[in-house]
């Protein structure tokens, strides 16, 4: 990782943490903010992937995966945009599904990494399990107490975690094969 990339990660990490704190201070508007930010991010990312597929990845073995990834992400972006005007409960359910999905993917990737003999599968598995447990916990709490605000705090906590991880990544050594 270059110095520029490290600085970029630190800045992004700090911005994410500040954003999370801001949402915690205004939880009602927080849902709207969360949905807008997620949909925008997904949209830009999806377009970038689509462009990359048509200019480069379509020639690559396994390149179709990039196309599927782009379509799914753009679809998610549109769906997220469509629920901005809906009730906070719908967004609550949607966020839960997103978290559950991310957690499940993390667990699957950890198992794949384990099968390939990679060392870092434990951390990935732990993250996935924590996310799934978090989703179940939030769903039970939200449905029992009928207070959907609780998920916003959970959302903010996960944002803060992401921000911290970005900053930690900036200081990590990235192992690679040295070619001779």
């Amino acid at each position, binding site marked *: 990782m270059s*110095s520029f990339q490290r600085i970029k990660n630190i800045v992004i990490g700090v911005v994410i943490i500040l954003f999370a704190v801001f949402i915690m201070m205004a939880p009602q508007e927080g849902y709207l903010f969360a949905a807008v930010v997620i949909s925008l991010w997904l949209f830009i990312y999806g377009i970038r992937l689509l462009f990359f597929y048509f200019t480069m990845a379509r*020639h690559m073995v396994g390149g179709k995966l990039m196309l599927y990834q782009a379509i799914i992400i753009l679809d998610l972006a549109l769906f997220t945009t469509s629920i901005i005007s809906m009730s906070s409960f719908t967004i609550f359910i949607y966020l839960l599904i997103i978290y559950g999905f991310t957690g499940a993917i993390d667990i699957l990737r950890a198992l794949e990494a384990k099968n390939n*003999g990679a060392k870092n599968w434990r951390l990935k598995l732990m993250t996935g399990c924590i996310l799934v447990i978090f989703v179940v916990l939030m769903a039970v709490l939200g449905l029992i107490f009928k207070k959907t605000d609780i998920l916003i705090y959970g959302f903010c906590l996960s944002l803060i975690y992401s921000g911290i991880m970005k900053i930690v990544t900036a200081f990590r050594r990235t192992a690679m094969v040295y070619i001779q």
Partner: protein
Amino acid sequence: MNADFHYYATYCAAILSGYSHEDSVDIAYSDRMVDHCTRTLLSIIKAPLNAATTQLQLELMDARTDLVGLQDITRIWASFHFLPGDLHAEPPKRSGKRYKNKFRLICKPNGELLEHTVKLAKDKPVQAVGVAMHVLADTWAHQNFAGTPSMVINNTNNYFYELIPEGDGYREVKINFRHSTSTPDDLEKSIYTNSLNTNTENHIMLLGHGRAGHLPDYCFIRYKYLPAWGEYEEIIKDNPSDYLHAFCQMITAMKYLRGETDRFERGQYDFSAIAPYRDEIDRILNKRQLDASQDWKALGEKLSGQAIPDFELEQYQGEYTSAADKDNTFLGRFITAALAQKSMVTHHIYQSGNKLAGYSIEANKKGLLWKLRSLTGGEAHE
């Protein structure tokens, strides 16, 4: 390729092509030096940083992957370790300029640039011969990968099978990869280390053959895999055969460089020179081991009747740092050869309409290079 081939095998090839023991040691040293001449080392001996022929792990980790950073990486790795096979190659399917530029940097043996590389070393000191031999040998070992970070060219998937000789045929064994650089490759279980997978096109993990681990560097291995650019057609890589061709082509090239033959032609391999030692060379190339240095060293000492000194990185550093006329020191001549090679390759890539290696002034004349270096305070523009 590993140090065994880039030092001891080069020594053997130099002896077989008619060089003296002393010259052969210098050629082998210069060949091996290509894998050690980093900016870090050059800054220690206060030499032009632009002469770097490789990058340390830490240098790579810290390398920028914006356009300027990519050009710097490409200049080093395409010039010395992944010499492009055909700068005007057309991809199998119609594609845009961005893809073509990457595709055209794929390393292949017997390309036009190889001929330029060998001819560039003609009538030059033995250090230039060593640099050229490193580049030549790597065109065989590193073929099908490019000396620039690229997912669409250098990536590989899980389809990797080792072909182990058994009876009249081969037994296929699934190759498993891990990302632990501190653990040696496990030849018994076919577990090898490779770089991490990423879906970022210009990620440094996707430079050269990182995704295939050290498989291209082992002389004994045969394997099949799917290169990212290959339209789902598997490639069978036969390293013992490729390394043998590299060895014989080095002899052909060095016979030309020392004036025994008038012309260097691509696709010519001096098998007759190795005929008396063919069985021994085949045995070394097929032996399953991580380092074949001792075997090559024994062959080299048998060929010349002289002891081959071990490679010592610091051997010529004192001479260079204390010399008033640095150009005429061992490292000075190596640096001049490295600059000429880098400049020549960069120039040809640029002339082909490909900006991935940046711009180079084709400066074969030392005077111009030194003038540029002095103008830029040690870091000449390429």
